């Protein structure tokens, strides 16, 4: 099963693959390290939410020995792409360590591309000439590689975190990437049910830019306008899956525009005019009206439940009329969020509290100390 450009030709550059699926996530807010097999076990309960055509995970805190370097995960269709990509990387970054991402052969995972990771930091001399910060520099570099190097995709580009994804069922993908070898304070996982032909490796979740990793259950009806809005700010949607816009929207609203997390969620899952009109506090009403009027093109419409990981924590969010399931639970300092309660109960049999977050209101877990 090939991937990349072959599928893109078939799909024509524009088609997007809708997402349907199951997700699960856990964070230890005290910073306890959780082994990767925990998230695999949780995902296993939701096997029927996927169809084996894609699954993936993101772990945070998994590269303690390279905490301050960008851990760049790349998939290559062939050596030519790898060469071109590495050349671009070396031009722009100081690569401290490079190597294949460790994998275990798995009978259910076929057609794997070349999977490499690079621990690197931006070359100061190059960054300074572009007059942008390190993070914008990384975003620009990733967009550049993904749009210009054929058959090559950077699928993870954050610090001390990594995305691992493939075509297959969640348990197989987890085993393939040897996730039990890693431990992290946050894990999110996803299993996919794409209805458009390819499960191709790039299309699996999580979608990532910098340290944002997004897994998504649902389909974004507003994708066409979300994408055009993001393109105005230099983001390129190349991965043919609507979830991509979620990752970039979080990056744009929170990192670039500096909106508080709760407000960013109000942009994406906007409150209804009916509720805004009933708001008693005039300053709050003014804020909500301004949010809807200014950020209409960033409103994410259609059913969605998303889990977003970032360096400091994890966010769970539903669309404004809760068309997709999302359940949350607490036990001590651990926060769990998943599509089904059973996925949580598999790894946390006796939670302190279980509840369903209401539509449009984020459930957030954050590290109490440093990342």
């Amino acid at each position, binding site marked *: 099963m090939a991937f990349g450009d072959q599928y893109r030709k078939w799909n024509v550059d524009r088609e997007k693959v809708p997402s349907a699926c199951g997700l699960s996530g856990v964070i230890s807010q005290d910073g306890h390290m959780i082994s990767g097999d925990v998230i695999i076990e949780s995902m296993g309960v939701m096997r029927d939410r996927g169809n084996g055509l894609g699954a993936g995970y993101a772990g945070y805190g998994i590269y303690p020995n390279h905490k301050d370097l960008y851990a760049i995960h790349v998939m290559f269709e062939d050596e030519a792409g790898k060469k071109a990509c590495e050349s671009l990387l070396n031009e722009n970054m100081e690569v401290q360590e490079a190597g294949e991402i460790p994998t275990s052969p798995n009978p259910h995972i076929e057609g794997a591309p070349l999977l490499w990771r690079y621990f690197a930091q931006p070359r100061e001399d190059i960054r300074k000439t572009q007059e942008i910060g390190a993070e914008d520099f990384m975003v620009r570099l990733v967009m550049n590689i993904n749009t210009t190097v054929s058959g090559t995709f950077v699928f993870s580009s954050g610090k001390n975190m990594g995305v691992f994804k493939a075509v297959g069922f969640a348990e197989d993908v987890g085993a393939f990437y040897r996730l039990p070898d890693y431990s992290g304070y946050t894990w999110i996982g996803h299993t996919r049910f794409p209805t458009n032909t390819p499960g191709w490796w790039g299309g699996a979740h999580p979608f990532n830019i910098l340290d944002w990793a997004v897994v998504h259950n649902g389909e974004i009806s507003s994708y066409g306008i979300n994408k055009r809005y993001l393109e105005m700010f230099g983001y390129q949607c190349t991965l043919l899956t609507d979830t991509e816009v979620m990752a970039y929207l979080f990056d744009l609203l929170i990192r670039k525009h500096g909106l*508080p997390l709760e*407000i960013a969620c109000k942009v994406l899952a906007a409150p209804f005019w009916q509720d805004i009109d009933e708001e008693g506090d005039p300053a709050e009403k003014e804020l909500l009206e*301004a949010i809807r009027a200014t950020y209409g*093109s960033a409103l994410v419409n259609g059913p969605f439940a998303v889990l977003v990981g970032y360096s400091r924590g994890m966010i769970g969010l539903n669309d404004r009329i809760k068309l997709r399931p999302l359940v949350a639970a607490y036990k001590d300092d651990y926060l769990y969020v998943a599509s089904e309660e059973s996925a949580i109960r598999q790894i946390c049999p006796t939670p302190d509290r279980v509840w369903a977050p209401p539509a449009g209101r984020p459930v957030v877990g954050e590290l109490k100390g440093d990342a």
Partner: protein
Amino acid sequence: MPGNLVPGEFLVDIDYERCRRCKRCVLNCGFGAFDFKDRTVADSSKCVACHRCVAFCPEDAITVTRNPLAFRENASWDVNLRKMIWKQAETSGIMLTGMGNDLPWLNVFDHLLIDACQVTNPSIDPLREPMELRTYLGKKPAKLKVGKDDGHYRLETPVAKNLKLDVPIMFSPMSYGAVSLNTHRALAIAAERLGTVMNTGEGGLHKELYPYGDHIIVQCASGRFGVHSEYLNAGVAVEIKIGQGAKPGIGGHLPGEKIGRDVSSTRMIPVGTDALSPAPHHDIYSIEDLRQLIYALKEASGYKPLSVKIATVHNVAAICSGIARAGADIIYLDGFRGGSGATPTVIRDHVGIPLEIALAVVDERLRQEGIRNEVSIIAAGGIRCAADVAKAIALGADAVAIGTAALIALGCRVCQKCYTGNCSWGICTQRPELTARLDPDWGAERLVNLVNSWAHELQEVLGALGVNAIESLRGNRERLRALGLDSTTMEILDVQPAGR
């Protein structure tokens, strides 16, 4: 030689067995096509097929048909072209006409199909679930700054005044003078009830309508009719009219016959004179002049949202980029199908470009330049039904404006004789015996019904698309597919062909 070489277009036939000689047709026809000499007699040459007589005949005794006079068919020489030449040979005048382009140019809306959700995404029930159409027109900030004050989030970015519409449909500018005062009254009452706006057009605003100011955009056109400081502050926004779709590049023309006392005092010109608007604003010869006028008007109106109305011509994208940078808050795009009370036929039918294409290129250009948030776009010129509204919004419009459709709701048959001032329906006339026929409250109700129907239909479309807020359709070309358009047009529209 016979004087009139041009045969009448229509034939009026009276069924004398049904006719009960009530003379309603005689009274109702604004064009004098009926007379009564011991029985009702019709002069078909005067008939314009406005159907007023048919609508009011209690016995259904009148039929109006096309004059069946046969012409040799000729694919090159359409009958109308032959007639135009006869008329021009007689008078050496410019052919004048009313309403919008009636030639069979390709209609892009009719080649666009709308998506619907199935299986992978649920459609939404607009009857039972929320479906939001509220729209704000005006300048928006590129981003918001939100601070925290005493535990609550507070907006720190100043936000410019915007126009709030409950539905993304407004009434197009139609001047008092071109249309009757009762028409303006009906539009104002309807705009208020619907939570949208009407537009004065270039004829000023009658004093009586000042109380509806919150639902009126006041227009400043090249003739500056009725433009004074009180007027500029009367409405909720100010619009500079540079051009209109029916006559790009030329000014308005209101014949002296239509300038009665009321029109004269509203426009502030003498009774009986022709009201000719110059082709350009004579203080706008280049883009920086536009900026100058924009700010002059903003100063005079307390910085209300400022709209600039243009006809869609070849370089409309570049023009709009300039207009946005000149300080406008709203750009009103009038496509080549836009209507008018009086316009030269040659201009109406052959000048300008389609609204759909203009919308697509303007929206895209503003995005490319990163300034799409600086202006809202209103699309007008041949918006005929709720499907057109949905497609216009998907191509990038913030809202649409309807002119012809609104007049049709009031009874107009699109007979294209508006410039005569003889409108039997009392819409585009100033003759008091005719204007009395349009009851503003009745008219307002019809307009409210029309816009409400379209709003509900729009909600049905949104529901099928699986979105519950209009902003998720706005600019979302992904939800359109083209059928039967050539590949270049599709590329320009940035719409995929059905099947992809």
